[in-house]
């Protein structure tokens, strides 16, 4: 038997930074200010507070739209990347990673400089005559701008896993398909896509999960709050209610775990088919 000693520091780390905070959130979610057990917080989220319910559905909607858009954009990019020479592939890989070296709040603030009134976009559109002087683009402070921000921010998390799986598909499989009379479209549909499903699944999870709990992006580019901002609101300040904030996080966590479980099911089923 292998020694388990090397795992001990890791276990301590996990206990301090993952398990204990999680227990604190769960305890908070099911207690009231006096510390007594209660289901009021959850009841309020699901039945009593139209703001929270609306906010949750809106966050879900924006996360779903952003995730689908990411997939639509990322898949062709991953395919094109996988077909390049290795040196070009490495360069593209590097370029996609590059923005992620910067803090995401900073990157969203640069979008602000692009979108804001008299910002870079306005100057460009006025230059080519699409906007008259004094007019501003209709994008800033809308849901569309928020979706744009989320897609921009999480696109690499979709491209990279898909690229990794697509790049591993041997050229001979494409050739075999074409030899046997498949159109290029059918090669893509019947050979490449099924083999890339694991990458697609992990891409979907890696985009949907953070998009669902995203914060700052919506306040900065859309002016309105999503679930993440609401948790923040209830956790800080006088009159704040960390118990409600914790309950909101628990609900969010539950839905995220559910979605991951669902996607993983697809993943496994496909493995069986391929095997």
């Amino acid at each position, binding site marked *: 038997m292998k020694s388990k000693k090397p795992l001990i520091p890791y276990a301590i780390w996990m206990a301090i930074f993952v398990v204990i905070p999680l227990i604190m959130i769960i305890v908070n979610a099911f207690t009231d200010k006096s510390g007594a057990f209660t289901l009021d917080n959850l009841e309020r989220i699901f039945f009593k507070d139209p*703001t*929270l319910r*609306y*906010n949750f559905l*809106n966050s879900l909607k924006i996360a779903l739209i952003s995730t689908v858009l990411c997939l639509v954009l990322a898949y062709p990019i991953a395919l094109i990347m996988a077909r390049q020479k290795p040196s070009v592939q490495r360069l593209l890989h590097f370029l996609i990673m590059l923005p992620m070296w910067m803090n995401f709040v900073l990157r969203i603030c640069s979008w602000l400089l692009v979108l*804001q*009134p*008299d*910002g870079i976009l306005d100057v460009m559109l006025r230059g080519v005559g699409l906007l008259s002087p004094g007019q*501003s683009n209709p994008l*800033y*402070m809308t*849901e569309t701008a928020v979706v744009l921000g989320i897609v921009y921010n999480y696109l690499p998390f979709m491209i990279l896993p898909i690229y990794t799986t697509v790049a591993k598909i041997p050229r001979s499989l494409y050739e075999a398909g074409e030899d046997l009379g498949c159109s290029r479209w059918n090669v893509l549909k019947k050979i490449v896509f099924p083999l890339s499903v694991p990458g697609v699944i992990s891409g979907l999870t890696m985009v949907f999960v953070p998009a669902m709990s995203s914060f700052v992006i919506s*306040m900065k580019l*859309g*002016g*309105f*709050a999503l679930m993440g*901002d*609401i948790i923040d*609101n*209830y956790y*800080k*300040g*006088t*009159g*704040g*209610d960390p118990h409600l904030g914790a309950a909101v996080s628990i609900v969010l966590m539950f839905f995220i775990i559910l979605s991951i479980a669902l996607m993983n099911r697809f993943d496994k089923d496909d493995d069986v088919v391929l095997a």
Partner: protein
Amino acid sequence: MKKLTSIVLALAMLLSAAALFASCSKKETLVVCNWGEYISDGEDGYMDVVAEFEKKFDCKVEYVVAETNETLYSLMKSGSVAYDVIFPSDYMVEKMAKEGMLAEINFDNIPNYKNILPEFKGLAYDPEEKYSVPYFWGTVGIVYNEKLLTPEDLATVENAKDFEILWSENYPNRIMMFNNPRDAFGVALKTLGYSQNTTSEAEIRQAAAKLKEQKFLYYMDEFFTAMPNDSLALGVYYAGDYLTVAAENENLKFVIPECGTNIFNDAMCIPKNARNQTLAEKFINFMLEPEVGRDNAEYLGYSSPNAAALEIMDEEIKDDPVAYPERKDSWEAFRDLPEETNALMRDLWAEILTDNK
């Protein structure tokens, strides 16, 4: 071999930690918790106040920064910190005093308290002058960009009766509002003609409806970049911070509406669990020295309640109508609100931010 290296490293770490403690114990230590950018730190030729104090009293100052009154409060409530001097605002002094979190200051140790102007002593947040010494005060007002406003709006805002101009339709996505419930509700309540300290649910709901009427950019520190770079036409912020951005963009102007505004007082207090109250009192006394008060005020742009400091202050700063306006009766300081009122504002705040479309 590896084991030996790690043992040696661990020992070295322990020793250096011990050395650290040993050097600390020689000198007295004072833990000061202030707001960011809220003390003269030796820049622009002004005094490095903390270093100067350390030299004069041969002690070590551990200087930490908190973000808001609310974070300071939760930090202290959690019991995980022991500060010697803190700088809470008026309503927070009141709340902390009420909850027994503040030590009574021994004013015999603070002879410079006589430098404080009488109108800043014994205010509603500390009527018996037991727990706090005023540090700075300031107002909230409309900040506007002369270049971006229409002539009619410019005329209106120059003689603003209330904050109504912030609800103008002429500047879509170019008007900012405080991104914290207390300040934002204060502006809306004042515009509706109510007190900023109202506990009436109806009035607060009306103020929330008022805030929802406009699509604001809810900003705090973003003010410092968005206001000077001409992307905002109108906003509402603190006078001292206006002076900071006005230095970068000469088109920015500041006005306090006739309906009145929030006047805030930040004070120096000593928490009950302070480790070194005597040294803390020495620190507070030092902050009230005329030269220290002057350098802090000139460097920060906030308004000083210190008469002795004002006497030796640069005339131009002292006569600035933004920093030292004539005080009016319609100005209100925040009071500590009951728990239900704060909770109501917090819930309505979530609603306002969710619906801000």
